[in-house]
């Protein structure tokens, strides 16, 4: 039996090889300047949030400069080797620039970039550690400050909530800005801060847990809830929509316009938009212009890297206060802290 199984196993392998190699026919492969290589984080192009925003900038640049491009998407349960392979494939095939969307690519972009000194690399949400890498980060705390202003002005109960997906440095920036925005506007409004997970990245895709926490906050009196939790945010928006008079604040993309959230859009007060598309477009443009961006770049409120969406018209009545706060931040009159 033992020997037989071995032979069997060998048979499988040979059969597989024979069958597949018999199937070979056409071929093609080229190189050099093919356009933009874009590596998405898990969730891919149509995640209605972060990746989708990057895709918008990429589409716009492709059309405008009439260049090609290649999009690859991360799988669940990847190792560094997988991410390195993805970026290497893109660089090797001649794509320039090569952009890693999301901090998961932080290490691999900086490592692979050293093997391809003539290619420009970029990573969103992480710092640059190599000469030909642009580390693109956003002033999420500034956008969140404006959300804090809106929440403080719109809250009737004097209690507002913040839900973070994962308690990491990135999400703490959202918290810090939001809390400061609330306190600067109405010092006596209470902010209830909760995180879904301490370090587990599934905090960005666990809407059920977010829904439970949001329901808890609503029960204890909060009537405006800001969620910075990727896909999980849909759960808390759903919970808020079920309660009259409560408002949800969305994140990353303008979630009022999100088709998946269309049923709840009348409860979405506003969204803190992270204009990843602007950053991606600017980076591609810089390469097209022959002056590629490198080093660390922070896209701030001042240059529209982050903004507060007004879709739905729910914040029209307080737009004046928000614009005033925005001006103060842009002029440097207010410094928003990026740590709570």
């Amino acid at each position, binding site marked *: *039996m*033992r020997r*037989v*199984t*071995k*032979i*069997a*196993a*060998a*048979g*499988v*392998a040979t*059969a*597989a*090889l024979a*069958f*597949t*190699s018999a*199937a*070979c*026919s*056409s*071929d093609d492969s080229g190189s050099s300047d093919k356009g933009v290589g874009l590596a998405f984080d898990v969730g891919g192009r149509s995640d209605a949030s972060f990746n989708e925003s990057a895709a918008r900038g990429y589409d716009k640049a492709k059309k405008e400069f009439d260049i090609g491009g*290649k999009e*690859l*998407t991360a*799988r*669940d*349960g*990847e*190792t*560094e*080797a*997988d991410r390195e*392979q*993805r970026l290497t*494939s*893109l660089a090797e*095939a001649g794509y320039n620039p090569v952009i890693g969307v999301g*901090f*998961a690519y*932080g290490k691999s972009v900086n490592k692979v970039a050293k093997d391809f000194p003539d290619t420009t690399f970029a990573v969103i*949400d*992480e*710092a640059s550690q190599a000469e030909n890498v642009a580390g693109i980060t956003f002033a999420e705390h500034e956008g969140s400050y404006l959300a804090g202003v809106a929440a403080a002005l719109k809250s009737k109960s004097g209690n507002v909530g913040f839900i973070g997906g*994962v*308690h*990491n*440095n*990135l999400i703490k920036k959202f918290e810090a800005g939001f809390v400061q925005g609330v306190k600067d506007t109405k010092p006596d409004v209470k902010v209830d801060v909760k995180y879904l*997970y*301490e*370090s*587990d*990245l599934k905090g960005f895709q666990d809407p059920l847990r977010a829904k439970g926490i949001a329901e808890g906050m609503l029960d204890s009196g909060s009537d405006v809830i800001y969620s910075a939790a990727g896909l999980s945010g849909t759960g808390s928006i759903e919970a808020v929509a079920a309660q009259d008079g409560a408002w949800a604040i969305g994140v990353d993309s303008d979630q009022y316009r999100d088709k998946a959230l269309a049923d709840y859009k009348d409860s979405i007060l506003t969204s803190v938009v992270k204009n990843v598309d602007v950053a991606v477009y600017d980076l591609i443009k810089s390469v097209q212009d022959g002056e590629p961006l490198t080093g660390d770049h922070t896209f701030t409120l001042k240059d529209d890297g982050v903004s507060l969406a007004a879709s739905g018209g729910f914040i029209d009545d307080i737009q004046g206060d928000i614009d005033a706060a925005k001006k103060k931040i842009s002029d440097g009159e207010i410094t928003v802290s990026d740590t709570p």
Partner: protein
Amino acid sequence: MKRLDRDKLITAVGAPVLAVLAALVLTSLIILISGKDPFRAYQVMIEFGTTDRSAVYIVNKSTMFFLSALAVAIGFRMNLFNIGVDGQYRIAAFFAAAVGGALSLPGLIQIPLIILVAMGVGAIWAGIAGVLRTTRGVSEVITTIMLNSIAGAVIGYYLTAGRLGEKDGNLTHTPNIPESSHIFMFGTSVGDINGFVVFAVLAGFLYWFVLNRTRFGFDLRSVGRSETAAAASGVDVKRMIVTSMVLSGAVAGLVGMPTLLGESYNYGTDFPLGVGFTGIAIALLGRNHPVGIALGALLWAFLERTGTQLEFEGYDQKIVEVIKGIIVLCVVIAYEVVRRWALRDQQRRVGEELARAGSNDKAEVGA
């Protein structure tokens, strides 16, 4: 006796060949329906999957898959379904990383220590399920699944700054293990092959030896075939259940070691997840035999490697997931089909022989 071997040969070779053929036909159909050329897809996979750099990747990745499938297979041989390999390897790697990061002993002592801690933690975690099964009669399928979640929660609790973790940008991980504890590598011009592959091969050999050449292995297999028969012949079934869960968990503890000792050097929020579930599929594919598992692991790593390239060539990389799923389904179905066919064939032959013997008897009586 020869007859029997031929039957087994047909089952053993026929089933996997049938499964792979069926999987290829079905996958081709799916690719065709999506409006793409399936043969071009296979060509891309073969071409890209056989480059030197791919070979290095495949060997490294399959080491992890192999160990995971081996852990699952130990349970399978015993008729235990250890779905908890995923939680076992993660919690094992986590505590091994924490111990490794806290100490700085010479590598010769520390590497074995890290590996032993991992095996120990994995064994304890799986052992809980074994003890619950024998003392309270709780199905190990339920407990191991639940222990997966609990492992995630325990890691989440300790993997925070101020407990056992430290912050590094947006990631949190345990302190790096000292350089002396990095495992040896086989350097090639296109990348390093993780030295842990040696331990994996060794584990595969030990698995084969213990199961097939020792009293313990015989007991284990006999309990797997029939608990009552084994008990009647003097095997302590309860002890065997706990022991095999503990062994399964100890092997599961090894799954994270190639990554910890040779790649990440810490356990962080970016540590690979889900390898334990991959192991279940590969153990099924390899029919719990170390060589079969090794080939299955290589095939899986090959598919993972070429998935990215397929996406590069304009195919959906989910195609690879479809191929994997179909292969596993086909293997299970094909084994059953071939087994039934062989059984019928055997019955028919036995019947013929009996009939012939019967007619001979009659002839004798008549004479």
